């Protein structure tokens, strides 16, 4: 009986492996390889149709900076805590966030690529402890 005839014969509830085991009994090495090629073909993996990975909420909140000089990195290190162990990572971003909030509120203005304080704001000390940018009185 040829291998193709073998593979077409199947009894109920018999797994492929069980059929294979039966077929290879008393077969030569070459015959076993042929039966493998006829019977044990790989089964395709089921397709995935669910949600696709995208930019995570974590990554949406992450930016990597490369400065023009190391001196800026050193300066920033004096202002915020930087984890040098993990490639200069930090979650201590409140100074940057405050800076960006000031830009949004137009307390600070960027004109011709230079950062200036808005003319209607002044620096005001609250008794020595803190200095704030506050609106100039009209």
């Amino acid at each position, binding site marked *: 009986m040829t291998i193709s005839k073998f593979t077409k014969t199947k009894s109920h509830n018999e797994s492929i492996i069980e059929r294979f085991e039966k077929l290879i009994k008393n077969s030569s090495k070459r015959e076993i390889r042929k039966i493998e090629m006829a019977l044990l073909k790989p089964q395709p*993996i089921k397709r*995935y149709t669910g949600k696709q990975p995208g930019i*995570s909420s974590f990554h949406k909140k992450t930016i*990597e900076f490369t400065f023009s000089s190391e001196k800026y990195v050193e300066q920033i290190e004096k202002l915020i805590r930087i984890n040098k162990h993990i490639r200069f990572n930090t979650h201590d971003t409140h100074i940057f966030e405050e800076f960006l909030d000031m830009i949004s509120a137009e307390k600070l203005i960027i004109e011709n690529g230079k950062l200036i304080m808005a003319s209607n704001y002044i620096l005001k000390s609250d008794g020595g402890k803190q200095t704030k940018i506050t609106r100039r009185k009209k």
Partner: protein
Amino acid sequence: MSLRDEIFDEGRRFVLENKGLKLDDKGRQYLSPRISSEFMDCSMPLTFDQYSHCSLGCIYCFAYFFKSCNQTFSSKLHTVNHTALIDTIHGEPNSARNKIMYEHFFKKKFLFHWGGMADPFCNFEKSNGIGYQIVKALAEENYPTLFSFKGSAIFKPNFQNLFGDYSKQKNFAFQVSIIAPTDKQSKEVEIGVPVTSRRIEAIRMLSQMGYYTILRLRPYIIGITNEGIDDLLHKCLEAGIRAVSMEFFAMDARSSVGMRKRYEWLSKLIGVKSLQKYFRALSPSERGGYMRLNRLVKEKYVKTVYKFCQDNNLVFACSDPDFKELNTSGSCCGMPDKYPANPLLENWTRGQMTYMIKEARKKHHMHGTQAKIKFDSVYHPNTDTYLNEVELGQDHVMVSDRTQAQRQGITYLKIAKEIWNNLRSPSNPRNYFHGKVMPITIDGDGNFIYKYIEDEYEEKWKSEGLDLTR
């Protein structure tokens, strides 16, 4: 010239091309240790070889394949800068690279895997002795180390004395590679390599010294290894093994002239006309060009070894992506989860897929729950700090097609995330494990969550008395 003669010359290629070479300081150019590109499911990503290649001519060698297909590869032998490495082992790293290695691995006494792409005890070691000096430093520091080898330099008196002197420490473990059950078979596929019986002697010698030994049944070649496997397993058990680690032969779709000859020879030995046609027909396409036969072909052979390990209380390890779930420790090299004789040998990472898929299988068969696997539960950059190191990211094979700018930001963690979420990647867990884990949804960070899928064989094996909760 007959094919047999051609194969024997081909197998001795590196020996012939380095005949009479005495290594000097100029030859200290080989970059090792390095991080394995298989880190996603590897318990010992810190891998090391003291020479750029080995003297042994194993016809099936994957390292020979990768090296001979690399156009920049020179067959001239090189070695590592062993004095710098020894300083690092002793806690005094003096180069930028060694400082990084020290910080992420040596300081933590992370398990050192020696013998990833060459053999630590091959004939090049006999004539140069560089490995011996490194082994001595590791012994002095009680540094946990796993050797994978076949070579006979281990029988030299200096090595025997060294391993004997430090045997009480038990900081060394040994994986001895044997894939041909008889000496006659091993002579056919392993040119210039100590025959099987000699390697079993090595297992016996090291086990009698009190060391943890593993039979490394890799690559298991269907058509060769199965012909006498029962006898081989029993002989190794009697010699003292505590674990068996198996992985099946895989064939790369690319080829070189030398590899074509080797494939032709292997075709004859395993009983096929064309090795390539056989592998093409039986390998899932989802895994790409590195062709691995599918689960159905491997099942009966895995079952034999798994049952043997269960019956004899050995650690069963499978580094093949198929049946990887059956590992009884989280290390597919067969290192134990617990080793009270020297707990430093337990110092391999659990932050990888071999551990997770093994845990998922256990959970499934012990509690009937389908385990879900999240990216953050597998990879832990706070513990495995190398994952976030840009310098080490350059070790990965994936950076070779990246621009310099892209390379500046690449880390192993980023590579892992990219592969984890790319269902087209042959290394993606769904493809690599060929459906054994499947994506079900995404988590809050936008990464796939995978779940463990039970296979037909599992119920059947259980009904036959095999324990899948080990």
